[in-house]
């Protein structure tokens, strides 16, 4: 009967990671991020359901899609700005694309460049570049959100104003907080890449779970954009 | 072995308990029983309940008996048989999945039928009663009869009563156990419920309760419902719709100019309390369970001797204003007394209880209630009116307010509002 376990245990590839046997062959963190995303689905489903339940039930305006005049004669126009939000949605979608490329760059790390590489083949390997691009596009989206929120407040829609304000700002605020957390995560990965370089199975996993989270946040935005902005 | 005897006795004992209790559920011993058939509503529900009880009892007996039998028969004994290594039995498992499914279907179908029957719109010609919940009292309005009253509700037998339920503050729930199921009062919503008291019911009084936790005095938010004969109800309703019978503050009636042009002298203001002219459920016929037994909490005193000398006119013209009562209570015909914050007092003396069914309506109780409602009913929104009384919510002693003599006047006034 063997008594020594570690000697035969898979070696220390990078840093301190032991490759333990797993039932599925997947890393624990991969499975954990999916369970986390499962809970997040229910979180956003509850927020979106609340918005939809309260749709059309605010007693006072401003309202999302129609103009309103208050009892004192104050005029409010339809507050949602579809063209601007379409632009920010596009930016977020592009950030998911950048995220895919960032993951690919880490996966390509250590593989040799082909002879006479094109600019694209070179840029595909720039994990720092694509991580930065994802973070920048995410931050741009957040900039759009900040602009939108402040202009809404300016126009009379605050989180306290009515059911629309409360449910809208809470829902999009939670989403924005998730994007912010994602941007911070990306910056952390970028910092690690700059300091020691991201390479190998463990680092690919770190970028992979960040990518899963980022894509999820993007999909949630698609749902929000469709249900809140596009559908009247 | 003692444990086996107890175990085998258990299901038999429980069954016996169930049967005994069923037989004992007489109206007198259990005055809030949900099993009686006094309305179409509770008759329908009870029909469902009977099915549930019989199936439930059957399943109970079968399952518990098999369980007890099994643990006795297959207990480990010296020289007993070895355990049989059985892993499953498809036929058995299918059977005991299908049979419960069938039983449940036999429950589901009448359930759905009853749901639709009892939630259909109320029949035409129903008597509309609006129930508006407040912390911690009930406002009742009969919109077609022009009646606004509180805490005690009269309904005629043999006619469908259609309740429209809502609340001005938190959630409440309207339940008269002897009449039928409950229905919640939800803010910003109107709920509907109806039932028809059986026309064979003789005039009766019933207890009702708030059954959705609504804060400090949820336990004290009680209802009295009186199911009365149609002519009694007519009399009661006509009277309730009239303004206060005693009203020193009533504006003088416009003088009629007679044909000869000479104005008659203005009629003097009414200063004598008039007797009640509408039906109320006779006090001497009230069953014991609708008469509140709640003791007045210790720590409040009132000189009951003052009550005899209470002046109703003074109470109406001074006390009612000085005490701030007019700020919350409406009295029909009294100028300025139109607030709906508190119960309508136009005919308060036609009620048998006060504080939402918590205490009896009598002079001494009324005096103490006025003096310090919050002491008698936790959380009560009504101000502490007695001068020198400690207000448990504000946590301070009232320096202004009415003294006992003034309160006695107000009591006399209220007792005149029959």
């Amino acid at each position, binding site marked *: *009967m*063997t*008594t020594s*376990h570690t000697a035969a245990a898979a070696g220390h590839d990078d840093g*301190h990671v032991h490759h333990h046997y797993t039932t599925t062959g997947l890393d624990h963190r991969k499975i*954990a991020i999916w*369970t986390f995303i*499962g809970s997040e689905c*229910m979180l956003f489903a509850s*927020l979106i359901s*609340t918005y939809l*339940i*309260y749709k059309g*039930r605010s007693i006072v305006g401003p309202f999302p899609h129609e103009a309103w005049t208050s009892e004192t004669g104050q005029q409010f126009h339809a507050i949602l700005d579809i063209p601007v939000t379409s632009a920010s949605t596009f930016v977020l979608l592009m950030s998911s694309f950048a995220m895919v490329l960032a993951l690919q760059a880490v996966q390509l790390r250590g593989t040799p460049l082909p002879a006479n590489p094109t600019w694209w083949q070179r840029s595909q390997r720039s994990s720092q570049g694509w991580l930065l691009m994802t973070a920048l596009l995410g931050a741009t989206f957040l900039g759009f959100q900040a602009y939108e929120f402040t202009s809404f407040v300016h126009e009379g829609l605050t*989180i*306290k104003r009515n059911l629309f*304000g*409360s449910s809208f700002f*809470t829902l999009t605020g939670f989403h924005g907080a998730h994007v912010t957390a994602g941007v911070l995560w990306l910056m952390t990965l970028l910092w690690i890449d700059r300091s020691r370089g991201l390479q190998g199975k463990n680092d690919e996993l770190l970028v992979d779970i960040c990518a899963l989270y980022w894509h999820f946040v993007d999909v949630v935005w698609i749902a929000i954009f469709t249900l809140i902005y596009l559908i009247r | 072995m003692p444990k086996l005897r107890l175990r085998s006795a258990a299901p038999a004992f429980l069954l016996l308990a169930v049967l005994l209790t069923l037989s004992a559920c007489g109206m007198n011993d*259990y*005055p*809030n*029983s949900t099993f009686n058939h006094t309305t179409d509503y509770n008759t329908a529900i009870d029909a*469902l*309940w009977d099915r*549930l009880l019989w*199936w*439930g009892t059957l*399943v*109970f007996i079968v*399952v518990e008996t098999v369980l007890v039998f099994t643990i006795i028969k*297959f*207990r*480990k004994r010296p020289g007993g*048989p070895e*355990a049989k*290594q*059985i892993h499953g*039995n498809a036929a*058995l*498992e299918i059977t005991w999945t299908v049979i419960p499914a069938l039983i449940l279907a036999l*429950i589901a179908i009448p359930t759905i039928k*009853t749901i639709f029957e*009892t*939630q259909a719109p109320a029949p035409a010609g129903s008597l509309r009663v609006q129930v508006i919940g407040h912390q911690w009292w009930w406002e009742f309005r009969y919109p077609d009869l022009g009646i606004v009253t509180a805490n005690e509700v009269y309904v005629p037998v043999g006619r469908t009563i259609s309740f429209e339920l809502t609340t001005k*503050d938190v*959630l409440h729930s309207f339940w008269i156990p002897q009449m039928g199921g*409950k*229905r*919640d009062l939800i*803010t*910003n919503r109107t709920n509907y419920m109806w039932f028809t008291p059986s026309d064979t019911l003789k005039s009766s009084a019933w*207890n009702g*309760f708030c*059954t959705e*936790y609504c804060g400090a005095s*949820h*336990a004290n938010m009680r209802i009295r419902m009186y199911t009365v004969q149609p002519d009694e109800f007519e009399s009661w309703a006509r009277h309730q719709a009239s303004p206060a019978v005693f009203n020193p503050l009533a504006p003088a009636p416009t003088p009629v100019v007679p044909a000869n042009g000479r104005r008659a002298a203005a009629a003097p203001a009414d200063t004598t309390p008039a007797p009640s002219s509408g039906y109320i459920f006779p006090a001497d016929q009230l069953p014991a369970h609708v008469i509140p*037994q709640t003791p007045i909490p210790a720590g409040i005193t009132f000189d009951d001797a003052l009550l005899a000398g209470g002046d109703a006119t003074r109470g109406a013209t001074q006390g009612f204003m000085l005490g701030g009562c007019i700020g919350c209570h409406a009295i029909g015909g009294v100028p300025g007394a139109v607030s709906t914050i508190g119960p309508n007092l136009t005919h308060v003396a036609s009620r048998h209880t006060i504080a939402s069914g918590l205490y009896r309506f009598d002079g001494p109780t009324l005096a103490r209630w006025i003096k310090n409602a919050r002491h008698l009913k936790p*959380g009560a929104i009504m101000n502490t009116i007695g001068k020198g009384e400690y207000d448990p919510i504000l946590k301070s002693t009232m320096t202004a307010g009415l003294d006992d003599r003034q309160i006695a006047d107000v009591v006399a006034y209220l007792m005149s509002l029959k």
Partner: protein
Amino acid sequence: MATIAAPTHAGAADYGEQTGIWSWITTVDHKRIGTLYLWTALSFFLIGGLEAVIIRTQLMKPNMGFVSAETYNQLFTMHGTTMVFLAIMPLSAAFFNFLIPLQIGARDVAFPRLNAFSYWVYLLGGIFITVPILFQVAPDAGWFGYAPLTSPQFAPGPNIDFWVIGLQILGVSSLAAAFNFITTIINMRAPGMTLMRMPMFTWMSFVVQFLLVLAFPPITIALVFLLFDRFFGTTFYAIAAGADPLLWQHLFWVFGHPEVYILILPAFGLVSEVLPTFSKKPLFGYNVMVYSGIMIGFLGFGVWAHHMFAVGMGAIADSIFATMTMLIAIPTGVKIFNWIATLWAGEIRFTVPMKFAIALIAMFTIGGISGVMHSSAPADLQQTDTYFVVAHFHYVLFGGSIMGIFAGIYHYYPKMTGRLMSEKIGNWHFWLTFVGFNLTFFPMHFAGLLGMPRRIYQYDSGQGWDAFNLMSTYGTYLLVVATLFFVWNFVRSRKTGAIAGNDPWGAATLEWSIPSPPPEYNFAQIPEVASRYPLWDLKDPAKTAGIEHSHADSMTITDAHAVPVHEETERKTAKELGIPMPFPTAKPLFTAVGLVTMFCGLLFLRNDMFAVAMTITLTGAAMLIGGLYAWLTAPLE
């Protein structure tokens, strides 16, 4: 059942483990964390029980006047909150922690430090939500806090703030643990242990983790809305803005109904371990037991509005939820029958855990029957918000969950401590509990149907409820005595109980193949499992001849280092065996303190103490981020 060496009692020191308070504060060992959960949860169980004793004393007689309305309302709120969130759920967590890795043949959970974090957050959250009652500002809107009673308009004091924030804290603990256990069960099973070979406790716990992951977010959001209303003036439950109180109810019960399955399924799992062991035959219909557990979890998300039959959702909604509720009775009933069939033709030994397990079958049946009675919506309108429903849920939660948990405690105490609990004292505990429990709760069926509403601090005489209330109170006092016997047994047996050895009961699953208490590393060698009952395969092959077995060359899950199932009795340290152990660390505790501190800061917002609130929250945030950083950058082992 013969072991290789005569069992003697082993302590942590024998295995080269640390001892002393600091070792408990820095532990990341699932067994120790399970022990921490157990002791803490039992303490909260006693607190919740004390609250119940005061409640029942107040209700002993009409117009009793023992406590004020305000105190009573805090008591019944805290009794429910304590029992659900601080007692039963963490008692289940104690077993998840202690047992799951042992049952699946793993050395720990997937994320040991996250595991410790979950415990510390629970402890701090439990203290946070309990301490207010000492200052008479405990939550007082019921354990389910319906809006708008909880809104700032009707609950201006700090009571509800404690409730909202406390529950959010506890939610973090449960969610983190759920992520951990799902990953553990999916990814750390010993070779050969397919999902359909997992022990029933692990299976039921697996379903529960999914329920936690999916059910907690809706209540998190419901609480976020309430928190925002109270602290930031939003309008989610504000009457004047046209808010709908049913929003709270729907969100709460979408959580609340799966929550009751979270409360019962682990107890079901424990019963499914105990019954076969003491019947000396396998669980009847293992496959169906697994599928019915999954069905209950799944259907459990489709019945929530049966808590809302009185709110007026309309005939169609009422009918759908009534039918779905009846449907869920089927997989639940099937379990009862399968258990009885497990007992049938067995050789039943009436140990204390077996008594509790059988009691669960008997009592849960009653609770299940009253549950079906509730499912018929019109009938429920006479039952809901009365003592009939109080009877129902105590039969399923006490007669079900608590009985099952006691079965689990008596059954697994030897494994945890190396000593058996006293059967004699255990029998006193059992019988006093059984009688006391029925005396307390059976009369409530009658009180309810005879018109007694719930959540009332006083009732008048002459209503027909006096006798039932008196019986319930006497039963409660009997339960107090019963619990004292349990506490005595639990505490005393650690020093004086009979030595247990690996497998005192003759059980079937992997946790019984290693010493009691297990060494830090659990298994010196990861076992390779060939069937559902690995230990019976080893010790009593005749028992398992009838089920399928796999052989090494046909297994699809493999690990080169695993060896066939065997008994381990040697006492070597992890170092001697060359097994890398995770480093003990206080970082999870530090991070937990940071998180809870952030939440504490919120408390000061409503009193316009903005600067204080910000200071506390930012300090907490700094601790949280610092702790997380240190934690994530430190190696596990």
